[in-house]
């Protein structure tokens, strides 16, 4: 009972289970049994509350009765599996309905298992173990992106391993690619053995890599085996981390600049940050991965950086713009792209900067792109930008409510301007209470 044993161990996070069971007595028995095995259990007695609990707690597992007072378990399961936030959570049906057709129906709805009542506790715990074991996705070292090495440049490593023989062996291996740190020298990377403590004099932001003479860690820690591949792996990890730091620093500087510019033409502070936050949420609802959401966030924050090259008088103007002024203003996406074009690692967000005013029907600017020519990330930022703008007072109109803003955007969808699925994702968020 590995999962159960892990949960019982004081240093392991407890397995969190939501039980959706309408029968009070059955729920109590189940709750006590699971708690006795170290699990944290929350109980709902109807489907609506069950879904609320799952969305609120994001548990490790859901145990779901089929027959519920307000709906059936299949409906609850389908809702859990249709929400990007909750869909990875495994669901096990517990039901007295043991016909093959019931089991097939439950499993076809996305459940990981179907257990017929009455069941033995040992069988339930074994099945929970099996399901949780399949659901866990062990983290692996990120070695996917090869990073070119600058010619002649060698990084500095310190090997902080207590065992002299092992330390010497690791130093010999690393010598092919690294200089070894002198006593008073700050290294680029520190090598420690297994779970050993990091030396106290090492700055917190320094790269620490854990190595093992045996095998790679399989308990969730990233432990690199000590073999001929060690120098290459350490080199890649350190350079990737360094580049990420550089990119983050550059992007933060640009974001500060863009925010400062934005404050000149936006009445409320923090509009850019709100757009970015909203766009990231939409991206999450659409199942986009972390990397894409980061691109969306940075693109949102920097989308109007081109305003820096526009005349301040146009940005500050309160009344209606002349056609010439409007044409000038509509050049800001192009100017923004020019400003950022020099940052190679920001190239992924240039389409957001250039195209965030394009429309699916081709009536946007600056390029008049149509539907399939506009990347999804851009469409998400466009929707978030327009939505957040509607929530703020403007000289020409007052702010509207979130629900009204969604209706306005749905009208824009009906006119063919915005992506219906992106607005639908936003509408779902707003209905669920949004983030603010």
């Amino acid at each position, binding site marked *: 009972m590995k999962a159960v044993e892990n949960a019982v161990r004081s240093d392991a996070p407890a397995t969190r289970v939501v039980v959706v069971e309408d029968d009070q007595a059955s729920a109590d028995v189940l709750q006590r049994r699971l708690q006795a095995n170290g699990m944290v259990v929350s109980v709902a007695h109807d489907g609506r509350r069950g879904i609320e609990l799952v969305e609120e707690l994001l548990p490790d597992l859901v145990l779901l009765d089929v027959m519920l007072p307000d*709906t059936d378990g*299949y*409906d609850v399961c*389908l*809702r859990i*599996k*249709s*929400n990007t936030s909750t*869909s990875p959570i495994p669901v096990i049906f517990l039901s007295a309905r043991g016909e093959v*057709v019931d089991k*097939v*129906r439950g*499993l*076809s*709805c*996305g459940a990981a298992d179907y257990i017929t009542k009455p069941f033995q506790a040992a069988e339930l715990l074994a099945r929970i173990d099996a399901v949780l074991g399949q659901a866990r996705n062990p983290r692996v070292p990120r070695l996917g992106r090869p990073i070119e090495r600058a010619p002649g440049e060698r990084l500095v490593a310190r090997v902080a391993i207590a065992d002299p023989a092992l330390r010497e062996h690791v130093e010999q291996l690393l010598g092919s690619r690294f200089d070894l740190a002198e006593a008073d020298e700050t290294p680029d990377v520190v090598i420690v053995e297994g779970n050993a403590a990091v030396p106290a004099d090492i700055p917190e932001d320094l790269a620490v890599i854990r190595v093992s003479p045996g095998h790679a860690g399989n308990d969730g820690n990233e432990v690199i085996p000590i073999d001929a591949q060690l120098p290459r792996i350490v080199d890649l990890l350190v350079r990737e981390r360094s580049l990420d730091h550089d990119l983050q620093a550059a992007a933060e500087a640009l974001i500060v600049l863009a925010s400062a510019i934005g404050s000149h033409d936006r009445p409320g502070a923090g509009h850019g940050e709100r757009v970015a936050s909203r766009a990231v949420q939409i991206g999450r*609802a*659409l*199942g986009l991965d972390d990397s894409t959401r980061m691109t969306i966030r940075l693109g949102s924050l920097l989308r109007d950086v081109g305003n820096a090259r526009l005349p301040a008088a146009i940005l500050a103007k309160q009344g209606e713009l002349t056609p010439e002024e409007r044409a000038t203003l509509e050049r800001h996406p192009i100017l923004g792209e020019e400003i950022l074009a020099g940052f190679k690692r920001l190239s992924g967000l240039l389409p957001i900067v250039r195209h965030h005013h394009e429309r*699916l*029907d081709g009536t946007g600017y600056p390029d008049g792109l*149509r*539907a*399939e*020519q*506009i*990347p*999804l990330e851009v*469409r998400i930022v466009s929707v978030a930008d327009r939505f957040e703008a509607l929530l703020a007072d403007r000289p020409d109109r007052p702010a509207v409510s979130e629900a009204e803003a*969604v*209706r306005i955007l*749905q009208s824009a*969808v*009906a006119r*063919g301007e915005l*992506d*219906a*699925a*992106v*607005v*639908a*994702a936003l*509408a*779902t968020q707003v209905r669920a209470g949004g983030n603010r």
Partner: protein
Amino acid sequence: MRPSSVSKRVTTSAPAHETDAERRHEHRFQVSESIARLVMRTTANNLPLSRDDRPYQWSTTTYCDTVSWSIFRAAQKGSAMQLRIREYHRTRPREVMTPGTAWIEFKDDEQDTSLKERFGVPMDVARAFLRGEAALPQPDHGLAERASQLLREGARPVAVTQYNRLAYNSLDSSLRITADHNLMYFALPWETRTDGDADPSPLGSLLAMEPDVIVEMKWYGELPHWAVDLHAYLKENTREERPSKFIVAMRWLLGETDGAKKTRKK
């Protein structure tokens, strides 16, 4: 009862092809699960279970429309040709356009009747067809050419329905009765040129779920007497005589969320 000329060919070199012989009647009813159980029990006493639609097999239908929603607008007026991709899975997939067999379906809906034609092809062929890079044979009603025209006008996948279908078919295919439940509607983000050709498309937000069961009767000519009675029973017990799943899906997608109650098709 008129004979059906439903044809079915499955070969490795040509697409599987099924088509209605002529326009057929199509009525649909939204009923409670208990009514649906009674109806399907009666149906099972008179018609064989369709082998193509096993119980709790998930049907996933991806509907296409243009940026200006021209197909939806035409459907609301009572006459439109749907262009859609149908997939079948044992468990509910969270993606559409997955590798395997795709059925490219053309369905010409009018007030009381419909005409359907479909081709079973590998998904990469279906994708190529949607991009306008592959043609289909046009053996019967010219629906494929009309679909190609829609694609030239910019029609792309925009909405998805998923449901479990229980289907009974007469041996000569002159009568088909289906019950769809666990009906779910999803948005689908607009496809871009940079999307991987072979990658399945993740479903967008869940737009709505329907708690009831949709019973559909499709037939040529006259109904047999037991089916006439069944039709009357359904009509008496229906919650809503409702528009097609396509119209309901599009209303949810566009925020016209008074759903199935807007128009009464029959």
